């Protein structure tokens, strides 16, 4: 399938609408009026991150970014485009799978103790500016929590409650490879509204696709009209351009077999020597879901609290069992990460754990690039044939 085909719009059966540049501000205001806290892209600390938006003035108008392995740089644009940047260091998982959450508290009471359940704050969130790869990441994380032995419903509830305004990418970043992962650059489902931004010398407008009833309802409160065939074509063109300019590619052919059979490939050792085990990649990755628990008490030891926070398979404690960590070497941790993302995830959750957003490449301090790693392993396969033949778990 060519990248162009991939970008063909899915027939949602609804006529795309058109809003002018000013309509974005009205959309934010309308969402706020409905009680949503609107979060989206904004410039902070020399990067485009996600945070609460008071108005469209907070959007990164006229900014873009330059991304390479181990490098991220904000740049000024010649135009005032709002969404012509690619994924930054943050991902939406911070809203749906919070970096830190109190699970419950406990209190001592006459030699005994009692548990005080925590009632999570239910917040109506509107996520503005969700890219296609990020939509996929949200669906992937939802699947992870839904498949838990005792389904963790919180994630799915938060996701379904959230109003999602997707934005189709009009340009690809230097570390993007969503086309390889079949996750972008066009948003196909999982949104209430999807915007495609068109910036011309004289005009700046958005073609809006409607993905849900509540999306249609919000839009009805704004000034819109049907987008013309010309406007739709111009919007299409930007997405097709993005698809054609992916900074990276990843060949996923038989990737599960490739990685499962190359556990002893010398490349792991080499990359393990470069890797700082800093966990940047897992924190930045929109699908990594791992967490750990902190137990704390007050000074008097009367009150205790359990907090869940993001964890990373790159830490030594992660695999600790009495006597030592299972994954002692950095090599083993890097192998766990990559193999989980690209191979075992498929077995666990029915899809790849990678959406091709490129964050792990950009934010790696030493510029380790998973697409390069896979290429290297593919180039010099070091097959270890299964010792006992078919194992039942390996689909190779």
């Amino acid at each position, binding site marked *: 399938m060519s990248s162009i085909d991939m970008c063909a719009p899915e027939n949602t059966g609804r006529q795309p609408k058109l809003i002018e540049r000013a309509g974005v501000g009205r959309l934010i205001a309308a969402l706020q009026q409905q*009680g949503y806290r609107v979060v989206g892209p904004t410039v902070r600390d020399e990067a485009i991150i996600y945070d609460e938006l008071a108005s469209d003035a907070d959007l990164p108008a006229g900014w873009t970014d330059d991304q390479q392995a181990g490098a991220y740089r904000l740049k000024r644009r010649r135009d005032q485009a709002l969404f012509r940047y690619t994924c930054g260091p943050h991902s939406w998982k911070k809203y749906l799978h919070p970096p830190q959450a109190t699970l419950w508290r406990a209190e001592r009471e006459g030699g005994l103790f009692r548990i005080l359940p925590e009632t999570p704050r239910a917040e*109506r969130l509107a996520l503005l500016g969700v890219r296609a790869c990020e939509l996929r990441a949200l669906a992937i994380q939802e699947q992870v929590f839904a498949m838990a032995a005792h389904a963790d419903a919180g994630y799915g*509830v938060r996701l379904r409650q959230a109003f999602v305004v997707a934005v189709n990418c009009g340009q690809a970043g230097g570390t993007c490879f969503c086309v390889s992962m079949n996750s972008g650059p066009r948003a196909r489902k999982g949104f209430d509204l999807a915007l495609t931004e068109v910036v011309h010398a004289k005009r700046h407008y958005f073609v809006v696709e409607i993905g849900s009833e509540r999306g249609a309802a919000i839009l009805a409160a704004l000034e819109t009209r049907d987008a013309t065939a010309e406007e739709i074509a111009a919007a299409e063109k930007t997405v097709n351009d993005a698809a054609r300019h992916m900074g990276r590619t990843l060949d996923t052919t038989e990737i599960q077999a490739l990685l499962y059979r190359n556990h002893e490939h010398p490349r792991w050792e080499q990359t393990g020597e470069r890797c700082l085990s800093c966990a940047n990649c897992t924190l930045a990755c929109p699908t990594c*879901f791992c967490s*750990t628990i902190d137990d704390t*008490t007050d000074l008097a030891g009367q009150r205790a609290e359990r907090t869940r926070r993001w*964890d990373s398979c790159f830490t030594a404690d992660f*695999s600790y069992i009495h006597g030592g960590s299972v994954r002692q070497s950095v090599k083993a941790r890097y192998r766990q990460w990559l193999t989980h993302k690209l191979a075992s995830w498929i077995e666990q959750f029915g899809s790849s754990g990678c959406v091709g957003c490129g964050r792990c490449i950009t934010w790696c301090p030493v510029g380790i690039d998973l697409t390069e790693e896979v290429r290297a392993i593919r180039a010099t396969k070091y097959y270890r044939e299964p010792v006992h033949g078919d194992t039942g778990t390996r689909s190779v």
Partner: protein
Amino acid sequence: MPSNLEVAAPPLEAAATTMLPRLFRVQRYLQETDDTFTLELGPLDDGAPLAFAPGQFNMLYVFGVGEVPISISGDPDKPGVLVHTTRAVGTVTRVMARLRRGELIGVRGPYGTPWPVDQAEGNDVVIVAGGIGLAPLRPALYRLLAQRDRFGKVVLLYGTRTPEDILYRKELERWRARFDVDVYVTVDRAIAPWRGSVGVVTHLIPKAPFDPLSSVALICGPEIMMRFSVFELEKRGVAADRIFVSLERNMKCGVGTCGHCQFGPLFVCREGPVFAYPRVRDWLAVREL
């Protein structure tokens, strides 16, 4: 406001309760060995007893210190008392060891896959336990002995470091006195007056009285011991898919969301801890997986 914009009140509590323990009271504390103790627990509420299948585990919470996975070691047919046998090795288990009668502990569970006791019907059952690995196997043994007629030979091979580390000593003696179960105990090292077998538990496998072609083997102990046990069992002709092992990995949630227990594609808390050996064979061969 159009009604389809209304957001329903979120049942977020459902998510929170997954991680909420139930409080149990220590009814009895038994010192098994120097570093190993058994807690008999009863629920603080008047809710139903915690029914479980042999091989399953609970997440046990010690106030302010933490929560750890511990197998249920009691009788599945007497779920009224919840029994856990724990070796004090670190932060949580050492504080747990100081709990006394009347004190409280948090319990989440039961989690995980059981030993295939029912599926073993009509077969000999060989239990190979190393150290604290006897604890998760004891419920299986209770069940086998309670329904003794359903099975062929029942053989327990149990190894510990020294004679002082032998768990459930009185019970072992009672079982050994029965004619319908073969109990063999060995220790890694011993000084007098130990007159039993010395050596690793895997050495007991070649001579143990069971029919390799119609046996089911249940193994729990250190990973290296399990690997050698499998080797010896296969050497005798026990088919791989009749061998079951219980694995141990770091666990923070027990329900498949924290990611810590991953073993290749498997979540030990959810797909395990008890696995049919062919399912984990190749993964066990990979170092630092």
